[in-house]
C-alpha cells in the first residue's frame, strides 16, 4: 500500500537501483566511453586543417634554415649546390 511518502520514496529508490543494475549489466557505460573517446579523437584530427599543416611545414622549414645559418655557420656562398642535368650525359657523348 502506498499510503505514506516513505513508501513512495522506498519504491523510487528501488526503481533507481533497478535502473543502475540494468545499465551495469548491459555494458552501456563501456560502450559510451569507447564511442565518445573515438569520436573525440576524430574531432581532434578533424581540427588539423590543411592550413595548420601548411603552417607547421613552413615553421619547420624556417627553423631548419635558422639552425643551418646560426649553429652550422653556413652562409649562401658556402652552400654546395648539386645540379643534376639528365641531358648532360648525352651532350658529353655528342661532343666526343
Amino acid at each position, binding site marked *: 500500500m502506498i499510503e505514506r511518502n516513505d513508501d513512495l*520514496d522506498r519504491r523510487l529508490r528501488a526503481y533507481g537501483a533497478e535502473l543502475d543494475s540494468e*545499465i551495469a549489466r548491459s555494458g552501456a557505460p563501456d560502450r559510451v566511453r569507447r564511442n565518445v573517446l573515438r*569520436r*573525440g579523437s576524430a*574531432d581532434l584530427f578533424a581540427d588539423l586543417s590543411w592550413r595548420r599543416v601548411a603552417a607547421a611545414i613552413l615553421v619547420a622549414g624556417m627553423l631548419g634554415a635558422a639552425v643551418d645559418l646560426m649553429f652550422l655557420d653556413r652562409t649562401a656562398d658556402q652552400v654546395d649546390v648539386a645540379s643534376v642535368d639528365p641531358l648532360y650525359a648525352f651532350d658529353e657523348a655528342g661532343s666526343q
Partner: protein
Amino acid sequence: MAKDDARPAIEVEEVRRIAAGDSAAFQKLIDREAPRLLRFAQGMLGSLDEAEDVVQDTLIRLWENAERWTPDARIGTWLHRVCYNRAIDQLRRRRSFVDDSALEGFADESEQADAALVRGETAVSVREAIERLPARQRTAVLLFHIQGLAQRDAADVMSVSEAAFESMLSRARRQLRRWLLESDDD
C-alpha cells in the same frame, strides 16, 4: 562545507585539462558521469539504446565546448541540462509518444494513464507509473528522487523557477501515489 567549496575549484581544473585536450582527464569524467547520465536518460526515454546516443552526444558536447565552459554551475548539473535538452529533442522526434503541449506547459497526461488503468492495465509498477507521467513531471521525479539533485539544481536543469519545480514535483508525487495505490488495491 569546506569540501563543497573546494569541489568547484577541482571541477574548474578538471574542465581546464579537458579543454587542453587531456584525454585521461576526459576519460575519468566519462567514467564518473556516464552511468549517472545513462540512468537519467533511460528514465526519461524508457530506452537504453536511445539513452546511450543521448549521453554520447552530451559528453561530446562537453569535449567540444570545454574551452567555453564557465563555472556558473556544477559540471554534473551542466551535463544534466545538456542531457535533458537532448532527451527532450529525442522525445519530440517521437511524436506518437508525447506531444509538444506536454513538454511546453503543465498539460496533464494523466487522463491517458487513467484510461490505461480502466482498460485493465492495473498491475502498475513504479517504473510504468513514472513512464506514464507527463515528460516534465517525469523529469522532476528523476532529477530529484533518482539522480539526487538539490531542488535548486534540478530547477536549473529544467530552466524553471524553484517554485515551479516544486509544484511539478508535488503533482507528480500525488499522481504516482494515486496510481500505485489503485494498483495495490487491485
